[in-house]
């Protein structure tokens, strides 16, 4: 049974079965791939990890609501594509919070209603200075990074496959948010936000650097993952 109604269960692939006696399991990976840090859970339960995710997501929901009314997003001079992207991301985070809430409720886990202090502090520090698209997406990229890295880290830590799928599905979207924010940042830096015209058909005018801004690495990182039990309700 999927923990999240938003994720239809698919069993297209052959499940189960070890890779073979010769392949060591996860613990060795962290030792031999130091550039790709998988934070160890220290025995955190799936519930604790979901509670941490809920606190991060709550902070993201608050952040997007805080910036949605800014002139750079909603003012008469705002770029409509930027406004749409911010609105879409905001709606996604509402859905993510609902999914983590649902996942905890199904497991009889306590809900974590406190927003992540780390994410909240990033927003508080920057909020009064968000007067340009560059500054706005810089903040949003920072908080999306915390979320993306934390959820991807959780994929390798949670025991239950439904929780693993939920974390991967949410992490994937956060990485897409990050990609788009980085592209917006690159365009803002280049003075090329006008290339994001809406409804004009395919965009031939995007600068070359936007490709790498969207996907700078061949493997997603977990460097800025929050400790998996940080948001646990103790």
């Amino acid at each position, binding site marked *: 049974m999927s923990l999240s109604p938003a994720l239809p269960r*698919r069993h297209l692939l052959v499940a189960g079965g070890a890779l073979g006696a010769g392949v060591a399991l996860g613990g060795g990976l962290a030792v031999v791939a130091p550039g790709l840090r998988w934070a160890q859970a220290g025995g955190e339960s799936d519930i604790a990890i979901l509670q941490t995710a809920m606190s991060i997501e709550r902070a993201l929901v608050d952040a997007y609501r805080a910036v949605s009314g800014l002139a750079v997003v909603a003012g008469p001079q705002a770029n409509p594509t930027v406004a749409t992207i911010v609105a879409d991301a905001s709606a996604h985070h509402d859905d993510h919070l609902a999914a983590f809430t649902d996942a905890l409720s199904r497991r009889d886990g306590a809900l974590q209603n406190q927003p992540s202090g780390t994410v909240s502090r990033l927003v508080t520090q920057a909020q009064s200075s968000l007067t340009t698209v560059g500054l706005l997406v810089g903040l949003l990229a920072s908080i999306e990074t915390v979320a993306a890295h934390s959820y991807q880290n959780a994929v390798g830590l949670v025991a239950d496959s439904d929780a693993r799928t939920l974390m991967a599905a949410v992490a994937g979207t956060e990485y897409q948010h990050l990609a788009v924010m980085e*592209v917006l940042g690159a365009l803002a830096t280049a003075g090329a936000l006008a290339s994001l015209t809406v409804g004009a058909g395919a965009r031939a005018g995007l600068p070359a650097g936007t490709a790498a801004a969207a996907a700078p690495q061949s*493997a997603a990182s977990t460097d800025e993952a929050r400790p998996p039990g940080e948001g646990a309700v103790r």
Partner: protein
Amino acid sequence: MRASIDRRTVVRGIGAALCSVAAVGCAGPDRPGLDGDDVTGITRLDRLEGDLAIAALANSLENLAIATYVAARERVARGDVGELPPAVAAHIDLAQAHHEDHARAWNGLITGAGRPGVTGVNLTLKTRLEPMLLRARDYVGLATVFSELESITAATYLAGIEAMTNNAAVKIAASIHPVELQHASFLNLVLDRPPLPDSFAKADGARPTTDTVG
């Protein structure tokens, strides 16, 4: 524009490290085909078991992605497709490099388990995408093919993350899945499609292990 060397080195390192941790001679990607099959012929992924079949499926998709981007570049060079915008040309180089890293990671896992690496492409998906690629006359046509490829590959990764039980394999899939989605988002921007269409990544359209490789 090339990806950061640090992350590429890490992805390669994952595959190589799994070989060394396994203490099994790693054949590397030069040994084509799958165990027990005619290495020059078409083979079925589901002749492998469990997580290995999924890893081989992922590998076949990465190989198809590499081949697709190479073929696109060749069509441009021949003049079959109009001039590429800078961002699309950069994406082709970048995405190909990423997929090469991904293929190496999966080959490292598979050879670390004592099986021959997968050098073939996913023929089942190629059958669908190749006509689209050959019909493309401009960057929009090419980007549409790339978008389809990246989205299907990402969906397959998510399905694999759910199905696999080996934690090392899950972590490889989890580290690659977001990158395919980032490629897809960028292509959505190029194509003036919503860059953030879904609240959750989806497994819709995931390829199965009954696909053929060759």
